[in-house]
């Protein structure tokens, strides 16, 4: 599904040039659950942003589903992104002014799904995440675990092929965290590819494979059994 080759990304400030990704190559197959680990500043988030098409690389190749997209402009990337990728953030990033239902509905609006279909699909996914009873609440009325479930519901409502999760349990206690990891595992078992950035060895154990980064390079790959 994803093949990146010699990917490079620099950050420049006035005096210093920092290499975030240094000729990084890796491959993720459809249906895989991959965890990316490494110390702060190793390039994990940069990699996730590029994989999620929120950012573009300075050099190298990024093939997504057989299409080279490293040179895509923002609009083309946004278009590809909204149909194929779901995001889960550490801080949930729900919109405070919208209810649970409306937050989950948002990606469907942007991909032009009809109103009747939207209701059906949102209800379906809320049901699956067991937060149907909270559908008319606002994010600030929910616990952290519930908020993250809404965020996951929002990430999957468009049936994306790939979910990118950036420390999804970072703001949760361990029982809520485990619940979220179970949800992601379920999704993966139903066929969604997942790439997750995490600091937690515990969470990483849910994945099939751990890629460890240091200074923008892959230093080790562990296959989980």
């Amino acid at each position, binding site marked *: 599904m994803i093949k990146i080759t010699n990917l490079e990304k620099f950050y420049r400030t006035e005096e210093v040039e920092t290499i975030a990704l240094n000729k990084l190559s890796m491959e993720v197959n459809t249906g895989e659950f991959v965890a990316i680990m490494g110390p702060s500043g190793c390039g994990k*988030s940069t990699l996730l*942003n590029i994989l*999620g098409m*929120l*950012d573009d690389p300075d050099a190298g190749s990024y093939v997504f589903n057989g299409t080279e997209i490293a040179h895509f402009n923002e*609009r083309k990337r*946004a278009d590809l*992104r*909204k*149909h194929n990728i779901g*995001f889960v*953030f550490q801080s949930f*990033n*729900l*919109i*405070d*002014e*919208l209810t649970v239902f*409306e937050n989950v509905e*948002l*990606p469907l*609006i*942007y*991909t032009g799904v009809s109103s009747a279909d939207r209701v059906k699909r949102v209800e379906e996914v809320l049901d699956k995440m067991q937060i149907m009873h909270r559908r008319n609440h606002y994010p600030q009325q929910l616990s952290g675990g519930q908020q993250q479930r809404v965020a996951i519901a*929002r990430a999957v409502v468009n049936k994306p092929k790939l979910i990118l999760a950036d420390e999804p349990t970072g703001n949760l206690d361990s029982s809520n965290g485990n619940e979220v990891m179970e949800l992601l595992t379920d999704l993966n078992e139903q066929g969604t590819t997942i790439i997750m950035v995490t600091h937690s060895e515990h969470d990483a154990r849910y994945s099939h494979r751990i890629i460890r980064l240091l200074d923008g390079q892959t230093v080790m790959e562990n296959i989980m059994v």
Partner: protein
Amino acid sequence: MFKNYIKTAFRSLLKNKGFTAINILGLALGLCACLLIVFYVVDELSYDRYNTKHDRIFRVNSDLKLGENRKDYAVIMPPLAKTLIAEFPYVEDAVRVKNAYTIHVKKGDVNMVESKAAFADPSLFHVFTLPMLTGDAKTALAEPNSLVLTESTAVRYFGKTDVVGTTMTLNENQNFKVTGVIKDLPKTSHFNFDFFLSMATWEDSRSNAWLRNDYTTYVLLKDKADAKKLSASLNPFLYKVSGDQMKKEIGMSYNDFEKSGSYFRMDLIPLTDIHLKSNRIGELGANSTIQYVYIFSAIAIFILLIACVNFMNLSTARSANRAREVGVRKVLGSSRSFLVAQFLSESIMVTFFATIIALVFAVGLLPQFNQLAGKEMAVTSSTLIWLIPAAVFTVLFVGALAGSYPAFFLSAFQPIEVLKGKLSAGFKGGGLRSFLVVFQFGISVFLIMGTLVIKNQLNFIQTTNLGFNRDQVLVIQNAYELNKETKTFKNELTQLPGVTSATMTDFLPVSVNRRSTSIFFKDATLDQKNSIFPQSWEVDTEWIPTLDIKMAAGRNFAADRVSDSSAIIINEAAAKFLGYKNALGQTLYKSNGGKTELSNTVKYEVIGVMKDFHYSSMHEKIEPLIIRLAENNGSISLRVNASNLPALMSQIKTKWAGFSPVQMNYSFMDQDFDASYRSEQRVGTIFIIFTTLAIIIACLGLFGLAAYAAEQRTKEIGIRKVLGASVSAIVGMLSKDFVKLVVISIVFAVPLAWYCMTLWLQDFAYRVNIQWWVVAVAGLAAIAIAVITVSFQSVKAALANPVKSLKNE
């Protein structure tokens, strides 16, 4: 999709109640003020447009130059109207209107004094659109001794409007037949009369004299006729028809007249220009000036700009709080145009609410505003025709204008930057926002300075030494009622304790009173080059002491000197115009009018020079004035020195009642004087009110902005406090940025305001100079306003517990 925009917009507005309130209130205030001014300006511009033929109606003006004297008239000679109709096929009709000033109308046993009466030709109702309720418009004013009333006047006298055929008694013994009742004249008419008397009643109207100007004359051109063509033909035509009269009476041809450097020129002014652009001798009513329309339009635009700037500033300032939302939406697939549309619909929604509030308030405040502006504006169906589209346009335009910057600014956020929390750095720069604050405060400083200068000038007018004493002078306006007994009455009044002196004449130095000019020649050659065309007034011996006018040289008229009947007193301006070093003993020849020859003049000797005093508006220079002894019983002015004025008044009234059954009309000279500056006073008050509004709106904006700046720097403030910063240091730090901007705005605004106000002052012949303290006050006021506004927020931020703000991160 659209529903989603509205929903998000609505909730976002609800969530930030304080912000929304400031935003809607500021905008509503601005729009309301703007709307009231628009009402005012529309009203000013709509004068005389009620006439369906207004684009074809013109008034004939004339300019006269005689030697070094220049006069501009709004009136023209009596036979011109009918001659124009006869000679120019494209002149459809013409009408003459002549002010009848005061008439007495019998109502029961009482004589009512009516001051709004005029003679008019029968064509009045063909040229002007004055709908007749009863009577025949074609013939109403055809016969002598017929008159047409306005609706409210008919009701006032008869309690009904169906009064055609009734007889009214005017001026004691003239019987007039009511031949028509018209609707009241619109307030937006440059003339306003209650009585129209048939011109045929007025003997003089049949005069064939071409060398006088005393009839206001309007011409109605045929459709598509060229006014310029008529305008250009007027003078050649006049020379043709009146050349003989000119030679016979003045003794020279128009050619020679022009060669001597003098001229007489006629011109046309469009009917709709009269109210704002005409201020000539013989106007039928007091007109306004286009200058005020400009000034008020400028203020309206300023206020609207300030309100829009507020909106932009507050919205972008708030962007930090909305950045995450933008980021999330972008990550979820929203395109930039979606976001732009979202923010625009939000700002259009705010504008919509603000417009509704503004409309409600503007309409609600209209009566008060009318009182202030001296107008009778009302919201009618014809107002709605422009008001509704204007409101829709305002909502869309102001909404889009005010929302465009935040919309494009917010939608341009890079999602990863935002989600990483990098935004605050980008927010702090806000170059445009700083520019907008400078702009806003620049306008405020400009308006403060403007207000101060206007206040100063008005104050100057009111307190300046006019050269005569207008306090404690009682004027009995209708003394002429007593005819030959006026003088006896005056003499009896002088006997009253509390009356210091009394003078009997119509000519008074308050500009609402009578004026008259005559030609005087310096020597017996009667050369026009050595002529003067001054105000020429008839007074008595008590005039100078009663008005407390000071003499520069010579003496006042004396009752016991017979020779004083051929003596004159001139003012300093006349002495200067005539080039006299020593005016005393000089002789002047006063023309009796008509042919220029010595037998047609009277010789006068100058026996005194009065110090100049202001007898007309401060807009104009003091012109030459010559007074001479003559009996004029127009009015009586008394200098009173009464500890008990009511008692004195009742004594005077009792005396009057012994002479005449008519009510005595009186006023005090200082009040008359104030009345003549009422339009300036009104403009001044309106200006001050709207300036205050503009400043309040600017403050609202700054208040909101300061709140967000403080919020934005919460963490910084927390760290500084932990490190030991005092509250005052933090307040200083937060206020400094804004004060810097205000100082910059002062630097820009002061020279501009100085320049503009100097231009405004040019219009006054007598004016104040703009003083340095005006600048200081305006500048300090702006800084003080800014500091106070900002301090509210800064102090709050500085007093907050740092632990709280740091824990949030």
